[in-house]
């Protein structure tokens, strides 16, 4: 029983920690499938987190906050598309610039709204839900209790993204664009339009991931609260083999190794070592499955 509870807690922690990375990672997958790299994910998540808090603050509803975050993602994605597609700017540079921009802009915004440094005021937080009846089951029931709506949403997003990429016109066309843009163009596909779409959707998902940190898992914005999850998302996308479900699984792996680190803290081990284990595991997994992961042929080439 004891062990079972631990396992359940471990599992729930894994889910909660994986959501922001997973959402962003799926976003990365979508945009990279169309051949567009985006190193600015970290920044977009940060802007999303901020947008969500502002939205929730003004409208007094975390749900509105989520939508504001999505909107933020759409706008930022649109600008990103304008620069890398419209003006043919280098994707990596714009991404890095975006990160710097975001880390500054968010704080400036918080300051101008709450007149506080780095930390926003508290805002409405997304309420959790409890599955009727099921939550009564002992121990397992806790998994049905006070859960964040974003857990099912994330699962759905990844499945839906997988479905779109794998089964639909849009998916086929996006993939062809990432593999062989000229072929897609000669097939009469409006390459730029699709890429723009992919970037925007991807960026919106990343922003949602950021929003999770600020108004779902918590109820305020803290300077730099994304804490590198954007880069983990980029990694998760690659580890997941440019596939939404793979990205989700990879994110779960990252989250799980993180969770382990805390669960078994009583195993006496130097802190830094226990912190780097997740990354070592990732490398090992990569070497194990990495070969199969195949990047779009024309990634980053416009």
């Amino acid at each position, binding site marked *: 029983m004891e062990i079972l509870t631990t396992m359940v807690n471990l599992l729930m922690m894994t889910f909660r920690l994986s959501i922001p990375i997973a959402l962003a990672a799926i976003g990365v997958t979508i945009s990279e499938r169309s051949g567009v790299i985006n190193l600015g994910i970290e920044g977009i998540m940060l802007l999303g987190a901020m947008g969500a808090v502002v939205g929730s603050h003004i409208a007094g509803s975390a749900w509105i906050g989520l939508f504001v975050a999505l909107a933020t993602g759409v706008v930022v994605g649109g600008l990103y598309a304008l620069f890398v597609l419209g003006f043919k700017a280098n994707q990596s540079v714009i991404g890095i610039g975006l990160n710097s921009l975001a880390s*500054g*802009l968010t704080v400036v915004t918080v300051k101008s709204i709450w007149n506080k440094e780095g930390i926003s005021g508290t805002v409405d937080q997304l309420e959790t839900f409890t599955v009727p009846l099921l939550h009564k089951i002992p121990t397992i029931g806790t998994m049905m209790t006070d859960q964040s709506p974003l857990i099912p949403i994330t699962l759905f997003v990844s499945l839906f993204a997988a479905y779109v990429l794998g089964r639909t016109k849009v998916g086929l066309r996006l993939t062809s664009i990432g593999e062989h843009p000229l072929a897609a163009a000669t097939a009469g596909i409006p390459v730029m339009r699709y890429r723009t779409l992919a970037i925007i959707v991807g960026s919106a998902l990343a922003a949602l991931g950021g929003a999770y940190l600020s108004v779902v898992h918590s109820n305020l914005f803290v300077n730099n609260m994304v804490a590198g999850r954007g880069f983990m998302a980029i990694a998760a996308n690659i580890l997941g083999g440019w596939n939404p479900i793979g990205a989700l699984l990879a994110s779960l792996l990252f989250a799980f190794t993180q969770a382990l680190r805390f669960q078994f803290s009583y195993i006496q081990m130097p802190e830094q070592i226990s912190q*780097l284990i997740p990354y*070592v595991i990732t490398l090992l997994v990569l070497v194990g499955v990495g070969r199969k992961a195949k990047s779009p042929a024309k990634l980053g080439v416009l």
Partner: protein
Amino acid sequence: MKPKGTFNLFARRKDWESLWYSLLAIVFSFLLVALIMLAMGYNPINAYAALFRGSFGSVYAISLTLCRSVPLIFVGLAVGFALKGGMFNIGGEGQLYMGGFTSAVTALILPQGMPVFISLPLAILAGMVAGMVWGGAIGLIKAKLQINEVIVAIMLNYIAQLLTSFFVNKYFMAKGSMTPQTEILPAGMQLPNIVANSQLTTSLYIALFMGVVYWFVFRHTVFGYEVNALGNNPSAAGTGGVHTVRTTVLVMAFSGALASMAGIFEVFGTYGRFIDGFSPGIGFTGIAIAFIGQGKPLGIILAAILFGSLQAGAMQMSLMEGVSAHIDKVIQGLVIVFIATPNFIRYLLNRKTR
């Protein structure tokens, strides 16, 4: 970006053009930020005056700018080198930590009696080797297992940072220090300042020298040519007798060595010791610098100096005008974005002329 063609040191017409557009880009982003400042109630004119004073206004200012540029030059060259070979080295951060740490520790454990002209190069070399390993590993994994270098680099970044942190905390912590940092290096090992009381040390010369080496490698050496060929068309390079696996590993190893020098000379120059987590993301800025410098050594050095001056100037801005560090981040971000987008400036100009 796939690196294209060999370059020559003497800029061609289009290089001058892109330089011109870069300048316009800077101006434009400054105008944009000026609006933000006005909105935030700062006086942009004074702010920018301070920015300039802080970056070029005095010998001290210039030395500060250059001091900030040095590590950026190293990582810029590192990323550029990898790009020439068709690889994306996002692992500079990890490589500079490994380099800085290894060289510092070497310097500390070498017998004190040893003459500096032996021990210093030895320590630096040790650091570069560490960087080579950390970079070469990425190349090896990519070449042998076809695993995307970006994810490997990201992981190695975290690992390097934590590993060095671990060793500093547990084994090399300076006595009675509250910060995780090694003991201060023997005075003889710390590079001499170029300008008194500034942080600018002779590492500047080394950085510039590496720029020349970089240029020379690609302009004159067979290895440079082979790297270029590899980056340009791997299978053709292979058919042309380029040993692709070996070259891939070498490229990343050298890239790693260059990146490690950023860390090494922060240790031997700026700080005089290794400090846990000292790098404010130098490795990532290097990527932007390499691209903005279009993989050309001169371009990279100029871009690095630009970024250095922004950092130096920003301090003066916050000191004199109280412009917050976050505004500075915004400026930097915008400058990066617009410099990377000459077409946007072109577009604006054409609009006007129409």
